[in-house]
């Protein structure tokens, strides 16, 4: 059982790392938002789940945290993306031309 928990935590941190890596590698802010928020959301959920395996009694609060992250993470990314768009940042140029063409 605890192996499962530990694996979930490992999986979660891996996703967190992937998110951070995406943040690191992606060429423009929109793509960074995509990579960063998605991966970290799932990553943190996974970590929470892993902890819940360790401490089953904590599930109510962990669930609450998870719900909160699920709710706020897309809101934050969307708000950020909008702000970036409003400041006039264009999506990654080379690809955009092709996409519209």
């Amino acid at each position, binding site marked *: 059982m605890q192996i499962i928990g530990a694996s979930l935590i490992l999986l979660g941190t891996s*996703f967190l790392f*992937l*998110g951070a*890596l*995406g943040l690191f*590698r*992606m*060429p*423009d802010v*929109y*793509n960074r*938002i*995509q*990579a960063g*928020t*998605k*991966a970290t*959301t*799932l990553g943190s959920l996974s970590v929470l789940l892993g902890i819940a395996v360790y401490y089953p*009694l*904590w599930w*109510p*609060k962990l*669930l*609450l945290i998870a719900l909160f992250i699920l*709710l706020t*993470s*897309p*809101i934050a*990314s*969307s708000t950020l*993306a*909008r702000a970036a*768009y409003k400041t006039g940042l264009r*999506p*990654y140029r080379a*690809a*955009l031309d*092709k*996409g*519209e*063409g």
Partner: protein
Amino acid sequence: MGRMHQPGLGIFPVWLGKSRIMNTNTSSVNVPQAAYGWQRILLATAFIYPVWLLMVGTFDPAELSIGLIIAVLTAWLSKPHLHILDAIKWHPAIALYVLVYVGVFLWALLRSNLDVAARVLSPRLPINPAIVEVETHLRSDLGKLLLANCITLTPGTLTVDVFADRLQIHWIDSTPGRDMTHATASIAAQFEYYLSKFIK
């Protein structure tokens, strides 16, 4: 553009202060109807109280009673925000639809993460971003919000902004030649289907 939506956000409880401003400044889009005020509060309490229970995690009588008071108070203080609850379609199978929706959503979240993982880990960094607009049939604000959130968390897409009935979406990989508008619409439609079961 974005300023079209200015629903009446009575933020701090102005009604306490008998402010002169209140009647003039709240917009007409979603004015809370006084007649249904208490119903909404009741409904909101029903939503809020379980959250309290989740927070405290016990059934200690003191916690329960204080929690009830706080829940009602919170609901009352949130009065100007409660109009979004009007969007819910009430019918017996609502719980089921919500569950299905959550399942679909989680599945999409998982897929999207794998997608991101693949892209990030790929040495070529296969991305091809574009911004696409798509229409939605959902009418309520809550519905559109949930839709936007879903789209944000599904593979390769990110909601940048929402206008009256269109969503502005950033694609991480828009393959050349593919009809992006159509592809987006299909994704939106998928979630819309489940959402429209319980939200206007």
